[in-house]
């Protein structure tokens, strides 16, 4: 892809792809647990609640194949990961059965965000500090945290799907 990725160390993209797959697996387990333990299985039943809680989705426009520009894509990827890391943190106290899965997912997202951030720095991209901090939703009941978990998990999976396609495109020899 136009030598876009030539400026990247060879293993960086392979590691990113592996990290995306790991986060997707963690995310799937979170959704599976929320369904089994709390009968919250369908994100489409929580759209209304999502609006009222203000759970936003992270944009990844500059990673779509038409407008793929490496540093913009990586910057947007980092901002999105940073947003999801904060959203996952806001879900703390979701429920004893779900907490271990949520903690691992959050660690993996933070891990991936750090990786992308450091690669941007190594590429000499001057970042003005952590991305804009949009306000986090406040969950006032256990149910809202669990419903929030379903919505954030579902949004994160779609975000990662886009990211995976872009990274795989960049990783093509």
């Amino acid at each position, binding site marked *: 892809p136009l030598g876009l990725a030539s400026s990247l160390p060879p293993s960086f993209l392979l590691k990113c792809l592996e990290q995306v797959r790991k986060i997707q697996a963690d995310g799937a387990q979170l959704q599976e647990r929320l369904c089994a333990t709390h009968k919250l299985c369908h994100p489409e039943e929580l759209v209304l*609640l999502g609006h009222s809680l203000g759970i936003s989705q992270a944009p990844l426009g500059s990673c779509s194949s038409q407008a793929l520009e490496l540093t913009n894509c990586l910057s947007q990827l980092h901002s999105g990961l940073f947003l999801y890391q904060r959203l996952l943190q806001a879900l703390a106290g979701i429920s004893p059965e779900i907490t271990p899965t949520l903690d691992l997912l959050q660690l993996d997202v933070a891990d991936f965000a750090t990786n992308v951030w450091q690669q941007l720095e190594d590429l000499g991209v001057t970042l003005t500090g952590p991305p804009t901090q949009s306000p986090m939703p406040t969950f006032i009941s256990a*149910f809202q945290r669990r419903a929030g978990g379903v919505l954030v998990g579902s949004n994160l999976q779609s975000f990662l799907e886009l990211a995976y396609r872009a990274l795989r495109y960049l990783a093509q020899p």
Partner: protein
Amino acid sequence: ECGHISLSDPIIHLGGPVTASCTIGQNCRHLKLQSEILWKLESEFQPGGRQQHLPDGSLESTITLPHLNHTQAHLSCYLRWGNSLQILDQTELQAGYPPPKPYNLFCLMNLTINSLICQWEPGPDSHLPTNYTLKSFQSRGNCQTQEKPIPDCIPAAGQSHCSIPRKYLLLYQNIGIRVQAENKLGTSLSPQLCFAPMDLVKLEPPILKALAPRPEGDPAQPGCLWLHWHSQNSTLFIKQKCELRYQPHLAEVSWALVAPLPSRILRHELCGLLPATAYILQLRCIRSPLPGHWSDWSPSVELNTTEQ
């Protein structure tokens, strides 16, 4: 917050009724509050929700489930929104019974680990998280009056036994003790026991050993065995009596018993046995004349009586 379920009490008697109401605040104007509120218990819709507009403009549905037969269930409040159903709130119902009275409270004083070990039967499952506590106190008389409280003994989760360390006990003074069971639907107490810990001492099994027949003097008597035994050193300070049981190894013969016997003997001659037969012998001891519990039987010793 757009929808909120409120319950009379989230803890319900199993099989009993539960009434819940789901209120949609008028701050959810974008919900065009003509929609229908629906109820689900786990994943099944529940008919019978009575819906009304409240003076403050909010919308409320109230439902009564006559008999809740789930020990744990999710109750969800839905709103029909366009052609989709939206969950507005969900609450977890827990149903069970008040805790049954614990029974068969039984205690033993173990001098090896220096603790009073008590166990009990918790009774049928109340389906609710239930905490058991062993409550005890030192008492002069027959435990009607409390002399000095003893700290509560909390068993490990799910266990029906607890050990009170020696430092809280006066071994020769009465202790009043009972088990308390407590869950969100109530508390119950086992009958109280009143005893001096030392009177429930259970000794470690004694040590029983075979002896070679008398080397000098009379030839080995056929149908006789020579034994010696002593109880554990840690309990030698206790006056005890013991009993010996024996039976031919293979025969389906019931045990024969020799009692009472002293707690230590250097040389005991057991006769009247079948010659040339393999016998199994065991010994146990009990505090005596003061009260106590029988020790377990000692590990069995296998001996053969001599030929005719």
